[in-house]
């Protein structure tokens, strides 16, 4: 009787341990996916950084204006896939890329400022 209780206890501990390990694994996978799904582009010194960014489908990119000058983030296609308002210092703009493709963009106040997002 005592032996069967011990085996049952051991089995329960094993099941519980596997459950905890499995949850931990799922958690780490989820956080990795979350990390993958958001990326940041900094706007500073009249340039986008990084200039070109390759991301998987479903990624949300956030542009943050770290410059003293107002900027915009506008796709070059017509009609515009994305177009931000004027971003003052520390303002942010986010867009989620749900389709694969290449998305060139620029700042409509400073047309020489260009960047590109490649969605795979």
């Amino acid at each position, binding site marked *: 009787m005592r032996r069967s209780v011990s085996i049952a206890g051991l089995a329960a501990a094993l099941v519980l341990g596997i459950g905890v390990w499995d949850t931990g694994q799922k958690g780490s996978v989820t956080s990795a996916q979350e990390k993958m799904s958001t990326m940041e582009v900094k706007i500073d010194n009249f340039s986008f950084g990084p200039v070109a960014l390759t991301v998987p489908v479903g990624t949300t990119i956030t542009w943050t204006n770290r410059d003293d000058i107002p900027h915009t983030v506008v796709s070059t296609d017509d009609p515009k896939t994305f177009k931000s308002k004027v971003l*003052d210092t520390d303002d942010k703009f986010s867009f989620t890329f749900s389709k694969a493709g290449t998305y060139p963009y620029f700042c409509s106040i400073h*047309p020489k400022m260009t960047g590109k997002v490649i969605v795979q």
Partner: protein
Amino acid sequence: MHPFDIKTVLFAKHAQHVVLIHFPIALFIIGVLFDFLAQWKKQRVLAAAAYYNLLVAAIATVPVVVTGILAWQWELEGQKLKGILLMHLVMGCLSTVLIWVVCFIHTRTRRKQQEVLPGYRLPIEAVAVVIVALTGHLGGFLSGVNGPG
């Protein structure tokens, strides 16, 4: 990009506003300089030079204001401006008004065939030069010429 699309011609990688703005700024400042010299040296030829510079400066403000407002309406979709952009717009309008006021004073005097220009024009011209310079500085800051870029 279509080469005959008006928005492409005016804005995409050209930004005509920042090119055209140099004409009224230069003409107005030189016009005021000639006017002050004419006042000091009492020379009609300098006064005439001042008049023509100020006249062309006033005319040159028209395409500048038009391209500036079109850039705001088309490139920024007329959104409510704030910060440096708003300050640049307000000071740009004020500069335009002052340039036209100075031009009007000179034109009226010439039409009335008066020998002497009114003395009150000089402080107006001095203030106008300061406002124009500040507006140009803000514009340069916005375009990256006077800024960190």
